C-alpha cells in the first residue's frame, strides 16, 4: 500500500469538492434549515389552548375551584378558559374544535365535598392531539393537587375538597435538575450536525461516487496500478475530511443559532472535532459499503430519503431512544447516527469531556473498521 496513491485520491476529491460550492452549500443548508424549522416548530411552549368550563354547581366550593383553576392557567398562559352554561353546548364546541377540552363541575360537587364522598369533576378532552392533551392533563393534575393540598384525607367531612387522586402526604418527590433547562432547538442541534455529516457522505460517498463511475471516470483510475484498498481508503479519507469540514461548520453556525453556552471553549471544540472525525469515517464507510456494487446513478438519489429517515429518526436526535418500540431500538443500535448524536449531546448539552464520549468513539471506530474491511472485500476492481 502506497501513501502517495491514497493521497493522490484524496487530493483529487478535495480539489473537486472545494471547486463546487453548490455541493458544500447543499450539505449545510438542509441540516441548518431543519434545525431552525424543527427547533421552533417542536420546541415551543404550548400557549392559549381554549378550554370550556361548565359550572353547574354554582356554590362557594365551585367558585373556589374555578378561582384556583384560573390561577393555575394564568401563570404560564397555557390555557384560555371560556365559561359555558351547558355541558352539551361545550361538547358541541369540543367536537367542532373550538375548544380543546371541557372541564365540568357537576351539580352535586359541593354536596359530595361536604359529605366527603369523593367529589368529582369531569375532564373531557379532544385526545386527537397528544401534545396538547398531555399539556392540559399536566395542568389539570396541578389543579387537583392544589385543591387537595394541605388537607387531611383521614378526616373527611371537614371543610375540604377533592381526594383525587389520593395523595400520600408522607412521600414527597423532590426533583433535582442537573443542567439548566434545555430548549428543544439545543436538543435537536446534535442531530443536525450528524445530519450534515451524513449528507456529505451521501453526496460525496454515494452520489458523486456512482456518477463518476457511470461517467467512466473510474476506468481512468482503474487502469493505473492503484490497488482497491488504496482507492477505497483514499475515497473514505477524503469523504471524512469533507464530513469533518461540514460538521464543524454546522456545529459553529448551529451552535450560535441554538445559543449553546461557551461555544468557543477550545477543549470542547477539540473533542467535538474528534467526534465529528470519527463520525465522518463511520458514515462514509457505511455509505461506501452500501454503494460498493451500485452502478446506476439513480440508486443513491432514490435511497437518499429512505436512508435519511432510517438513520436520522431512530438515532435519538429528535426523540429519546427509550421511547421506541423494540424493533426501532434495534435499528438505533446499528445506526452510526445514534452514537454520533449521543456523543454530540454529551459534549454540547453537558460538556462531559472525554468520559462522556469514549464509548461512542470506540463503537464508531469499530464500526468503521468492519465497514471498510467489508467494502474492500466487496469492491470489484474490474469493469
Amino acid at each position, binding site marked *: 500500500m*502506497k501513501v*502517495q*496513491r491514497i*493521497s*493522490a*485520491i484524496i*487530493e*483529487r476529491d478535495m*480539489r*473537486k469538492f472545494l*471547486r*463546487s460550492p453548490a455541493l458544500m452549500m447543499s450539505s449545510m443548508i438542509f441540516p441548518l434549515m431543519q434545525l431552525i424549522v424543527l427547533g421552533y416548530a417542536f420546541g415551543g411552549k404550548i400557549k392559549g389552548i381554549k378550554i370550556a368550563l361548565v359550572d353547574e354547581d354554582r356554590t362557594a366550593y365551585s367558585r373556589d375551584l374555578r378561582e384556583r383553576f384560573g390561577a393555575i392557567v394564568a401563570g404560564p398562559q397555557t390555557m384560555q378558559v371560556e365559561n359555558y352554561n351547558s355541558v352539551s353546548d361545550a361538547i358541541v364546541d369540543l367536537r367542532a374544535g373550538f375548544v380543546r377540552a371541557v372541564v365540568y363541575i357537576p351539580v352535586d360537587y359541593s354536596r359530595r365535598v361536604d359529605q366527603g364522598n369523593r367529589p368529582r369533576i369531569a375532564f373531557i378532552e379532544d385526545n386527537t392531539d397528544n401534545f396538547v392533551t398531555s399539556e392540559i392533563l399536566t395542568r389539570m393534575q396541578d389543579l387537583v393537587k392544589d385543591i387537595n393540598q394541605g388537607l387531611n384525607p383521614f378526616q373527611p367531612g371537614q371543610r375540604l375538597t377533592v381526594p383525587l387522586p389520593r395523595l400520600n402526604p408522607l412521600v414527597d418527590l423532590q426533583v433535582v435538575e442537573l443542567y439548566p433547562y434545555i430548549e428543544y432547538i439545543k436538543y435537536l442541534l446534535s442531530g443536525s450536525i450528524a445530519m450534515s455529516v451524513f449528507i456529505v457522505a451521501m453526496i460525496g460517498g454515494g452520489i458523486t461516487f456512482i456518477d463518476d463511475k457511470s*461517467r*467512466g*471516470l*473510474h*476506468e*481512468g*483510475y*482503474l*487502469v*493505473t*496500478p*492503484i490497488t482497491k484498498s488504496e482507492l477505497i481508503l483514499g475515497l473514505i479519507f477524503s469523504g471524512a475530511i469533507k464530513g469533518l469540514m461540514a460538521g464543524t461548520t454546522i456545529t459553529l453556525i448551529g451552535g450560535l443559532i441554538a445559543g449553546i453556552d461557551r461555544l468557543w471553549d477550545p477543549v470542547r471544540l477539540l473533542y467535538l472535532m474528534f467526534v465529528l472525525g470519527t463520525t465522518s469515517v463511520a458514515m462514509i464507510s457505511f455509505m461506501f459499503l452500501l454503494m460498493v456494487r451500485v452502478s446506476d446513478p439513480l440508486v443513491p438519489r432514490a435511497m437518499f430519503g429512505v436512508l435519511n429517515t432510517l438513520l436520522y429518526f431512530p438515532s435519538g436526535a429528535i426523540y429519546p431512544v427509550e421511547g421506541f418500540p423494540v424493533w426501532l431500538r434495534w435499528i438505533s443500535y446499528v445506526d452510526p447516527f445514534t452514537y454520533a448524536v449521543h456523543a454530540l449531546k454529551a459534549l454540547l448539552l453537558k460538556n462531559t469531556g472525554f468520559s462522556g464520549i469514549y464509548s461512542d468513539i470506540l463503537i464508531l471506530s469499530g464500526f468503521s473498521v468492519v465497514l471498510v474491511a467489508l467494502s474492500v472485500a466487496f469492491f470489484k476492481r*474490474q*469493469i
Partner: protein
Amino acid sequence: MNPTNDNAIEVTKLKKQFGDFVAVKEVSFTVHTGEIFGLLGPNGAGKTTLIRMMTTLTPPTSGSAKVGGHDVVSDADGVRHAIGVIPQALTSDPELTARENMMIHAKLYGLTSAQRAKLIPELLESVGLTEFADKLVGSFSGGMRRRLEIARGLVHSPKIMFLDEPTTGLDPVSRTAVWEMITRLKKSAGLTILLTTHYMDEADKLCDRIAIVDHGQLVALDTPARLKDSVPAVDIVEAEIDNAPQNWKASLEKLDGVASVADHDDGIWHISTTNGPATVRELMDLARDRGINVRRVSVQGTTLDDVFLYYTGRQLRDAASETVRRDVSHLYK
C-alpha cells in the same frame, strides 16, 4: 519487458463469456514490439472486451494474455505499470484542470515531484494543450479531452499503449490531430500501440497490421495492403450518364470482368469489376458507339470496406446497425 522478446502482446485462446453470451471467442494473436496494431470491427464485435482483458480491467473466462511480458491475471500490477490506456469513454475529470488530471495520474504511477515537474509540461506541450493547462477539463472540446487523455496515458512513459476507439465522436479536424499524434508517438517514443476502431480509413491510415473482429472472433489479420490483396479484386466504377437506353444495364453486364451493375435513380451507375481501368475504357467505347453522354466516371480501388465485406459477408455499416438491434433485444424479453 524481456528484451529478447519481439512480441509486446501475446494473446492465446482468450475467451470472455457474460452469462450465455460469448463476447470474445478464443482469440489468439501477437502484437510485435514497435508496431501499430488495429482491431477493426463494428460496435459490439468484442473489441472493447478484448482490450479490457488485455488491460486487466476484465478477467478472462479462459485463455491467457501476456502484455509487456507480464501475465494479465497473475501479474496484473506488472501489466498496469507497463501500459498506458486510453479507454473509449472520456475518463478525464471534468472538474479538474488539465494539469491536475496529469498530476493525479502521475502520482498514482508513483512519479517523483521532480519527474512530474519535468514531464507534465512536456506532455501538455506535445498535445498542444499548454495554454489550456490550468483550465477546467469540463470546458474542453471532445478532441482536447482526448488529447489530454493521450498525454495522461503517457505520463509514466509506458512501453505499450492501448487506445480504445480514440477518435469516436470527434470532429474531422480533431480526428486528424489525434492521428498525427499517434503516428508521431510511434516514431518518437518507439511505442507499441494497439488501437481499436470501427473506421476503415483510420485503420488503413494508421495501422501496420489489422485484425478484423466480428462476433467475438478474428476473421482476418494482416497488413492493410495484403488484406486488400487477399480480396478478389473488386474495383467499383462509378459513372454518371445522361439518358441511358433500355438495354444499358444488360450491355454493361456483358463487358469484360464485370461482376454486377447497380442502377441508381439519379443516373449514377455502380459497376463492380475485376479490372477497373479496362472496364472504364470499354464503357467509354460503348457510350461513344451509342451516342451516350458520360458526364463523369471514376474508379475506386479495393478498400477495407470491401475487405470487411469479403470476410464477414456484411458491410461494416450494416453490421453496426445490426449490432444495435441485437443489443436492445433483451429489453423486450
